[in-house]
């Protein structure tokens, strides 16, 4: 097992763990969005989706544990890499200018959008997780409606989806690059997919609270 520790304590090894866990979150985002789009089928469809999901039982628990482990890995490594990178340039440039076509708003804000997403996930679970919120007397639609009726929370949710979009925009193609999947045949598609997926996530998830509010 020593070789495992040796590989994943290197700079590339750490980044590849970041990439793999990141891709896992992208898969999760896709399924989470697809499921929640059931709101556009009406209140019954939405409640039925939630019931079917919870009926998965053990399978759901396995997925949840997997996501929590991935989250711990992703965040821990992000913090380590962030401080290592700061240490690598102890004296900053007086003039720090990009040559253009390199860093983007999204790539430069990854640590900060990441932290914001972490805060959002905390609030989101506290608001809506079936482990935390009692669902015996209320349907998931009623719970969600009450949450989003609070203007402050609604705005935080909408802003958070833009933040998630920003994180995904750099994260998606970056993950492919880091695991070594960069080829002239498909890299242009992956770069395009990064932007497309970011917009879909921001607009798709962002529309859900509004759809819920519109349905009462």
């Amino acid at each position, binding site marked *: 097992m020593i070789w495992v520790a040796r590989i994943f304590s290197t700079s590339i090894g750490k980044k590849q763990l970041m990439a793999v866990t990141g891709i896992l979150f992208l898969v999760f985002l896709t399924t989470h969005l697809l499921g929640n789009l059931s709101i556009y089928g009406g209140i019954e469809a939405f409640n039925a989706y939630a019931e079917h999901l919870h009926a998965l039982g053990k399978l759901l628990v396995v997925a949840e544990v997997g996501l929590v482990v991935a989250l711990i890995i992703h965040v821990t490594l992000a913090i380590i890499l962030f401080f290592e990178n700061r240490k690598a340039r102890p004296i900053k440039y007086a003039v720090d200018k990009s040559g253009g076509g*390199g860093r983007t708003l999204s790539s430069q804000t990854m640590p900060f959008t990441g932290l914001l997403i972490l805060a959002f996930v905390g609030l989101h679970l506290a608001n809506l997780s079936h482990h935390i919120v009692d669902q015996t007397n209320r349907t998931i639609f009623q719970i969600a409606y009450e949450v989003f009726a609070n203007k402050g929370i609604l705005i935080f949710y909408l802003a958070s989806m833009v933040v998630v979009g920003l994180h995904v925009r750099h994260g998606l193609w970056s993950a492919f690059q880091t695991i070594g999947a960069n080829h002239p045949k498909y890299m242009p598609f992956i770069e395009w997919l990064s932007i497309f997926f970011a917009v879909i996530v921001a607009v798709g998830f962002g529309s859900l609270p509004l759809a819920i509010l519109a349905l009462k």
Partner: protein
Amino acid sequence: MSGKNINLTLKIWRQNSPEDRGRWEIFQAKDISTEASFLEMLDIVNEQLALAGKEPVAFDHDCREGICGTCGCAVNGRPHGPDRETTLCQLHMRRFQEGDTLVIEPYRARAFPVIKDLVVDRSAFDGVIQAGGFVSVNTGQAQDANNLPVPRDDAERAMDAAACIGCGACVAACPNAAAMLFVSAKVSHLAVLPQGRTEAARRALSMVAQMDAAGFGNCTNHKECEVECPKGISISNIARLNREFIKAGLASKE
């Protein structure tokens, strides 16, 4: 082709030794021909400093024809100055305007300590090369050319990576001071050729270990290195290094 002369204000980082804290000094570069190269402009300024009994500005240079990788510092925040795929020695003063202010500072990275003024110690790169940037061959009679068939595309890709002159602009440009473009170019130009495959796994692991030990940062795919590389090395080499690394780590005996 006739040039004109321009006047510039130079804000240059001065540092007497690695231990010195360093400071900024302002110089007026007067009557500089736009046909002078950037380093010739520094030569002119240094000559005036020497005549005035002051210490000239130390900067690195050797070939002055863009092939050795010795020159380089940040000009207005850009390693090797504002031109694409151009080393500092190949940058010309016609790129600048009358009255411009140029901020000239050394490459900033923990792994590249400043020796004096604009000169940095890039021996961390030598350490990476020593860790695996070679192929072991038997001595004796040279092999017949074309004994080992190499597809043309592979040869081209190897040559593209081998164009790296090891100047350190990638580290300088990277917001994380990562050396991935350099290391990936050195791994790639051997990894795509049959001669380099034998030691490929060991090479990837030991060069990456040495890179980490030298105190470079971690790549976060900002692509700044590719933008500033005077030889136009592509970040697809970084992906190849990532591939070589994971292959070596998970599927080799190393």
